[in-house]
């Protein structure tokens, strides 16, 4: 058995401090939890309630957007508590300080961090509750707790041949103090972690009963849709709502800071009213910008290095040898989550209530409080299921709008975006220009590399702080923290401040930078006359986990022996602690790469739910491939030119490859799985295409690279 030390426990205790959730006491770890009269359950802390009927409600502080946290988080608690999954009820946690992520100090779901950051806190909370139930039984029976064990929701006194279910102990447990050092299971005692392969939400998601933000229905609520200025930074100067108000079902038209909101009886009437608005704008300075003007500026910055901020400076910049140089250009892309942005809000004199598919409860809450002019603790947030997130719902623009409209009309309202709004008012995967150079020694070893990234600041878009020198570690992800052991390495960041809203999109920064790094690695390996796998392994000699994913994916894919009519490409990536590698088997269909099979392997530490890990590797592979194939957002006269899925192209069934995903699971702590596999598929495909026709993709999407 392992025990957590006092310092860990104090840290955990401070996480609970200040909880006012559901009648849980000010210190969730002490036992001031009998307060809530509506249930006779045992509430040892803010994370769970043991009910007399043996069911246990577990509060999930992360947003379920498909990545499986609604299953994974409770699995961790349930294992340490020692209950079967059938007894678990889940509830999405309200917005409260107690539910903040211990790393971010915000209630947020992002960066593939949920399992990694909640692993120890959730184990401890389950173990603590289990110890209290054992102590309650020991007290009842007048025996030493150390003589008792638990099994599947029952305390067992083997010596005296008696048992007590947790449900029967809820009253007795209420007077038991929380242990200072709850004893955690040793991994060989896990009954659920690594073994549960079902998801708790699957049954709800095949029969239409899972409730997403768009499904929220509140008595008396209206529906609204907002016309946003098409040009970034533009402002409404005047508008005429006469025709909009003539649409059957339209109730009101109100101006809010972001645009003009049409309020109606139903969503469709709101859309019709929106189309009937006449609006004048002050277009602002961005109106003169286009993809072409921005691209020219980015390429010039990458070339001349104006404003470059040093991110890594290691060794010499003046090595000579065989030198390769290349410039890569990445276009804007949109998240395009299936559920369009939406939120429902009710602003009253008592406060604000919000129902939303949000990834960022803390900021949505603070922002709503400011808009409504109420204290933060008067803003309640109910997190629904999310119809995809991919980082889009880390922004509170859509929750803010619901609050503004509800405040204006003094009624509950659901603000719903049309797909066109979603496409044209995203926080985009930033445009980027990367200039790279590499030097090979006489033996074909990579001895020096320089890498300059021109990309808007993703951290700035999120409202998060940058480094004091202005370096953005997210926009520079996979460049500043490359796993390759290159003795002489120089990396620079240039922030173009383009005026396009810069977004956090699945493996932000890394999804583009890895494409550059890995495609360039293939260029270098080719120039060195080396096998691309061996070339990489030679640069990862101190990194056994990275080597292992590369060797495993090569073995799984029979690297070097592609299926007839195909060529292979390989790529390696690293995202928030997870090493990942992909081999793509590709043929060409005219100018379009057709991925016949993709093999992906990730080292995720301990896999809490192997099926969910595989789902994420498969899904991220498809997401990355979808974006690389033909997803492009372009700007003309300051506005996005794409509208909907007919001109913002994403993968459908007919482009979906056969994917063989594999996990390297170990006894290491869990690492993230939602994003890593997004980054390796595009460079693997690009290298396979090079093997087919000798064309290098130095631009994404492929629809431009191979046109």
């Amino acid at each position, binding site marked *: 058995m392992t025990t957590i030390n006092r310092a860990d426990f104090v840290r955990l205790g401070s996480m609970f401090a200040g909880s006012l959730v559901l009648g849980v006491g000010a210190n969730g770890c002490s036992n001031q939890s009998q307060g809530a009269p509506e249930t006779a359950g045992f509430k040892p802390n803010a994370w769970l309630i043991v009910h007399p009927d043996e069911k246990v409600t577990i509060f999930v502080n992360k947003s379920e957007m498909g990545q499986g946290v609604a299953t994974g988080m409770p699995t961790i608690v349930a294992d340490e508590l020692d209950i079967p999954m059938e007894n678990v009820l889940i509830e999405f946690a309200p917005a409260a300080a107690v539910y903040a992520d211990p790393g971010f100090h915000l209630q947020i779901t992002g960066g593939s961090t949920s399992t990694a950051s909640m692993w120890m806190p959730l184990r401890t909370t389950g173990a603590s509750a289990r110890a209290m139930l054992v102590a309650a039984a020991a007290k009842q029976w007048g025996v030493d707790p150390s003589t008792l064990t638990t099994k599947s929701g029952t305390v067992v006194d083997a010596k005296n041949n008696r048992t007590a279910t947790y449900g029967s102990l809820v009253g007795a447990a209420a007077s038991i103090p929380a242990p200072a050092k709850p004893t955690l299971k040793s991994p060989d005692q896990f009954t659920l972690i690594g073994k549960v392969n079902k998801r708790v939400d699957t*049954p709800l998601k*095949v*029969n*239409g009963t899972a409730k*997403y933000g768009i499904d929220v229905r509140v008595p008396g609520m209206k529906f609204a849709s907002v016309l946003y200025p098409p040009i970034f930074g533009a402002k409404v100067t005047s508008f005429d709502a006469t025709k909009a108000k003539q649409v059957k079902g339209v109730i009101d038209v109100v101006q809010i800071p972001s645009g003009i909101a049409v309020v109606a009886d139903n969503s469709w009437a709101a859309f019709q009213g929106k189309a009937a608005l006449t609006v004048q704008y002050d277009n602002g300075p961005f109106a003169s910008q286009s993809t072409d003007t921005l691209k020219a500026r980015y390429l010039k910055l990458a070339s001349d290095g104006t404003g470059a901020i040093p991110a890594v400076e290691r060794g010499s910049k003046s090595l000579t040898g065989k030198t390769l140089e290349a410039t890569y250009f990445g276009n804007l892309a949109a998240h395009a989550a*299936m*559920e369009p942005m939406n939120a429902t809000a009710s602003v009253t004199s008592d406060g604000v209530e919000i129902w939303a598919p949000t990834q960022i409860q803390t900021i949505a809450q603070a922002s709503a409080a400011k808009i409504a002019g109420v204290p933060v603790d008067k803003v309640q947030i109910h997190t629904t299921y999310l119809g995809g997130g991919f980082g889009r719902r880390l922004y509170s623009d859509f929750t803010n709008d619901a609050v503004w409209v509800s405040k204006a009309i003094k009624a509950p309202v659901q603000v719903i975006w049309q797909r066109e709004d979603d496409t044209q008012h995203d926080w985009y995967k930033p445009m980027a220009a990367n200039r790279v150079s590499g030097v090979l020694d006489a033996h074909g070893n990579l001895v020096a590399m320089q890498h300059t990234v021109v990309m808007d600041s993703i951290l700035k878009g999120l409202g998060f702080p940058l480094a004091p020198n202005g370096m953005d570690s997210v926009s520079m992800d996979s460049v500043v923290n490359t796993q390759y052991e290159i003795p002489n390495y120089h990396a620079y960041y240039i922030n173009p401040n383009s005026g396009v809203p810069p977004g956090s999109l699945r493996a932000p920064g890394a999804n583009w930078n890895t494409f550059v790094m890995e495609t360039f690695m293939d260029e270098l390996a080719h120039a060195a006359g080396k096998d691309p796998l061996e070339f990489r392994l030679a640069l990862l000699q101190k990194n056994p986990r990275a080597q292992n994913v590369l060797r495993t994916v090569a073995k799984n894919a029979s690297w070097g022996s592609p299926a007839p009519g195909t060529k292979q490409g390989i790529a390696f990536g690293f995202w928030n602690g997870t090493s990942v590698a992909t081999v793509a088997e590709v043929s060409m269909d005219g100018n379009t790469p057709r991925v016949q099979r993709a093999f992906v392997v990730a080292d995720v530490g301990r896999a809490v739910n192997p099926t969910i890990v595989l789902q994420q590797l*498969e899904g991220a592979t498809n997401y990355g491939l979808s974006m690389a194939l033909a997803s492009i957002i372009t700007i003309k006269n300051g506005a996005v030119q794409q509208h909907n899925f007919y001109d913002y192209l994403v993968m459908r*069934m007919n482009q979906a490859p056969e994917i063989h995903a594999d996990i390297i699971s170990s006894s290491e702590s869990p690492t993230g799985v939602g994003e890593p596999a997004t980054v390796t598929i595009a460079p693997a495909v690009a290298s396979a295409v090079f093997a087919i026709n000798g064309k290098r993709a130095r631009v994404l999407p492929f629809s431009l690279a191979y046109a």
Partner: protein
Amino acid sequence: MVSLTINGEKHDLDIPDEMPLLWAIRDVVGLTGTKFGCGVAQCGCCTVHLDDAAVRSCVTPVSAAVGKSITTIEALGTAEQPNALQQAWIAQEVPQCGYCQSGQLMAISGLLKTNPHPTDADLAQSISNICRCGTYGRIRKAVAQATGGQTS
């Protein structure tokens, strides 16, 4: 007044003839299992059955549904008794975010009425519903399981 029969139940609704069926189902009748994704028949999230045909309800005016039997995801099966496709979806753990899956299930169950044993190639040709979580591979496996077919 527009009279619609949804999942065997008759609804008399005071709505315009041209209102898309999607919004009558979601915002007026209040069945929210059918989803809005694009509004222009591109993504298939809103797929329902009109009699035996799978249609995209976001571009189907309610006038076109009058006199027909409308079936939504809520009537494909029940929580207690999921139909064969739903059972296969559960067994193969198809959904991630799940938002598109109502439409996927309605589109594929519609296809099965004319092609009870679709191949992967049939699915690629006939099913254009978008899934941004990328569950396509698991959908293929689940369809094969439900129909006794083989995946590639």
